[in-house]
């Protein structure tokens, strides 16, 4: 295998790609990390929260150096109807100190930082380079093994023992390798985000935090007729506001994405948070939402798939994670490549350690456990009926209707359930599903 240009070629210098490169390069493999943008992270659109604890082994005390914006110490889940809102708000001061929990970050900075670690470990990072196809061994004995990639540069073919595809949600590499079925719009959501600039002091006051503390607000019921959710995240001097929309509904609803954000921003519960913010960035990105049911074959002959390219994104309502799955799957792909190359077998069989690593860790255990959650969270009942029912119950509980006496909770529940059009049977079934997923 020494006649290859590199031992490992990694496509895409996002978190998955950089962490795969760190593992491979640290083990002494000749590692090439290809990035389509002008620098690692330049292609990124992300307004979310990063949970980097998975980095503990790879970069000890990562929090000392990681370019994060704010440590999330407050998490809110909000239910909105047209003129009501109900929040569940949790604050934990301990999350403002090592080892922390979640953090907001500008991904162009965060990804660049991870890629720098890959370079420090000895990997070669080549930016402005698009992978246009796979090279394969045509001999019958090898079974069409992937032997490298073709790039858009002159004389751009690169051979390698193992190719790791970390090329994101639209992964053309995994598709070309035949690891995906036909993509289906119902498995995806579209995230549309605005970054609004506000002075730090104003953000601190509005969100009730100080220093590097930050807030993560997830919202249901703010996306009109399109199933989805909304979010508000605090960065140091900006806030990220956006919505995540179910593609099939968006296409059918005839409402443009930016109009849905605008409507959410005008809601009386959201407007005071975002008012006066100057638009600095508008962008959009697909999210592989369907979890386990849409994942491709993770291992090919000479090929591994990691991160969003492998649909490793957890969109389970109260847990919205992706970067940690990308980091972990990238690490495991890197480790597997090291192991397979040492054993001299980079066929699908030789790379089987990858599936084992994914399966034994949170990467697939979380997804297996929460396999029903994405569908439940985006169901019409959770999206449209339950917010109305729950805020209705809250309204009745807190309303003082003297001289009438207070109604009992049970009566309120049944009346509001009927008003919102929630059938008891559906409610019991969803409760059961939720309990099985989250319990």
């Amino acid at each position, binding site marked *: 295998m020494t006649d290859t240009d590199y031992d490992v070629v990694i496509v895409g210098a996002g978190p998955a790609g950089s962490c795969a490169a760190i593992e491979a390069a640290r083990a002494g493999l000749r590692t090439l990390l290809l990035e*389509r*943008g*002008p620098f690692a992270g*330049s*292609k990124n*659109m992300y307004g979310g929260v990063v949970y980097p604890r998975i980095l503990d082994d790879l970069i000890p005390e990562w929090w000392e150096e990681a370019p994060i914006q704010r440590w999330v110490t407050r998490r809110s889940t909000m239910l909105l109807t*047209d*003129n009501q809102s109900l929040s569940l708000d949790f604050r934990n001061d301990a999350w403002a100190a090592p080892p922390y929990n979640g953090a907001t970050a*500008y991904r*162009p*900075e965060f990804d660049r930082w991870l890629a720098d670690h890959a370079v420090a470990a000895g990997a070669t990072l080549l930016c402005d380079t*698009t*992978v*246009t196809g796979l090279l394969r061994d045509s001999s019958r004995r090898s079974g069409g093994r992937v032997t490298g990639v073709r790039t*858009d540069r002159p004389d751009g073919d690169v051979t390698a023992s193992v190719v790791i595809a970390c090329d994101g*949600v*639209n992964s*053309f590499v995994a598709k070309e390798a035949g690891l995906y079925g036909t*993509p*289906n*719009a119902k498995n*995806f959501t*579209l995230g549309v985000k*605005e*970054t609004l*600039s*506000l*002075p730090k*002091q*104003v953000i601190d*006051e509005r969100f009730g935090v100080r220093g590097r503390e930050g807030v993560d607000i997830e919202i249901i019921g*703010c996306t009109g007729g399109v199933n989805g959710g909304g979010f508000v995240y605090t*960065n140091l*001097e*900006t806030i990220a506001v956006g919505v995540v929309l179910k*593609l*099939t509904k*968006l*296409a*059918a609803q*005839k*409402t*443009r*994405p*930016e109009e849905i954000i605008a*409507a*959410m921003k*005008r*809601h009386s519960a959201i*407007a005071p948070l975002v*008012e*006066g913010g*100057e*638009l*600095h*960035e*508008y*962008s*959009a990105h*697909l999210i592989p939402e369907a979890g386990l049911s849409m994942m491709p074959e993770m291992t090919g002959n000479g090929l591994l798939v990691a991160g969003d390219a492998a649909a490793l994104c957890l969109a389970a309502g109260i847990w919205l994670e992706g970067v940690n799955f990308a980091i972990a799957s990238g690490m495991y792909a890197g480790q597997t490549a090291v192991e397979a190359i040492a054993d001299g077998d980079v066929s699908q069989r030789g790379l089987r350690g990858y599936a084992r690593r994914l399966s034994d860790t949170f990467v697939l255990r979380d997804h297996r456990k929460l396999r029903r959650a994405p569908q439940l969270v985006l169901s019409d009942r959770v999206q449209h009926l339950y917010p109305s029912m729950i805020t209705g119950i809250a309204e009745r509980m807190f309303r003082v209707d003297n001289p009438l006496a207070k109604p009992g909770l049970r009566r309120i529940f049944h009346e509001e359930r009927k008003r919102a059009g929630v059938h008891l049977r559906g409610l019991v079934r969803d409760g059961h599903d939720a309990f099985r997923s989250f319990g």
Partner: protein
Amino acid sequence: MTERDPLWPETSFGDRMDTVEFKVSEKPHIVVDGKVCADCSTLACIVACPADLFVPTSDGGILFNYEQCFECGTCYLVCNNEGAISWSYPEGWIRRRLPEHLMIAVCIKWIGDAAVSGVSAADEAAVEMALRHGESSGSSVLAVTVGGPAADRCLRDALACGVKTAVRIDASAEMDSAAVAAALSPVVAHSTAVWCGDYSADRGSGSVPAFLAALLERQQALGVVGVEFIDPLRVTRRLDGGRREVLRVTGPCVLSVEGSVARLRRASLRAAVAAQTADVLPYGRPPASTGSTSGVMSGVVVRPYRPRARVLAAPAGATALDRLRALTDASAAPQPGETVEASPPDAARRIIEVLDDWGYLAE
């Protein structure tokens, strides 16, 4: 969600897309097969594309503009007609501006006096420095001035040269330097570097940059006579007795330059013309809690006009030459100008009507 009265003016789609920079590949990465689209009943791509790049044509096809694509992939996923949209990763790239390295700012002083009117050589040099700084660091440039509507002139000149955004803080330019700096500070607070001229056309004290640096709590390099755009920035200051001082500038800073440091580039004819008719939009000023900004009144944002793609009917004509002529107006008589003699409100109405007719008020 019910429609509410807007609490603030909604951002126009053009302004939204202005926040993203695109380096465009010559080769389209998305190809739309118009024949397939002609039978489409859903037109899902038109609604769903977050960059609004798909436009229906009058003959039932889809017009597509790939240059501002976010590369998200929504279109091919929602397209229900197998194969109508073929999509691959583009060779160009898009860059999102980050607030941290978002902007280089330049402050310009406009003097409207009959005797000394205009902008000083130092301020012009500052604009040029800001543009070069922006080019070398991949940031866009924000130009700010304090003054009345006449001061738009210097902003338009800056826009023509390549400044991305221009803000006029509508206040009297007669304020003292501390008040001018206080007015400027919230607008330039997010910029990494703030460039100023060392003196204005009426030879003021040159103290605004110093006040600005103090208000923003930033380092300052004033009276700069030479700049090298390397990382970190290296600037030369003039000292007494013909000596020089070379400073390395890291982090957020305020710099003022002498007029000798550079000449402002000439804007191209097209850019200059476009800047003269640039859109004037209301400027939402930052919340009052940013410090002593009591001198700030309302301002305006001046941006170059960027029309969205729109559908034109296919030209009529029997021969290719006729159709070409129809498209280019080559044989048509030039549109005659129109002199309106009416009361100012009526004249304004007529002007708006005509602009609307010509398609300049599409958004």
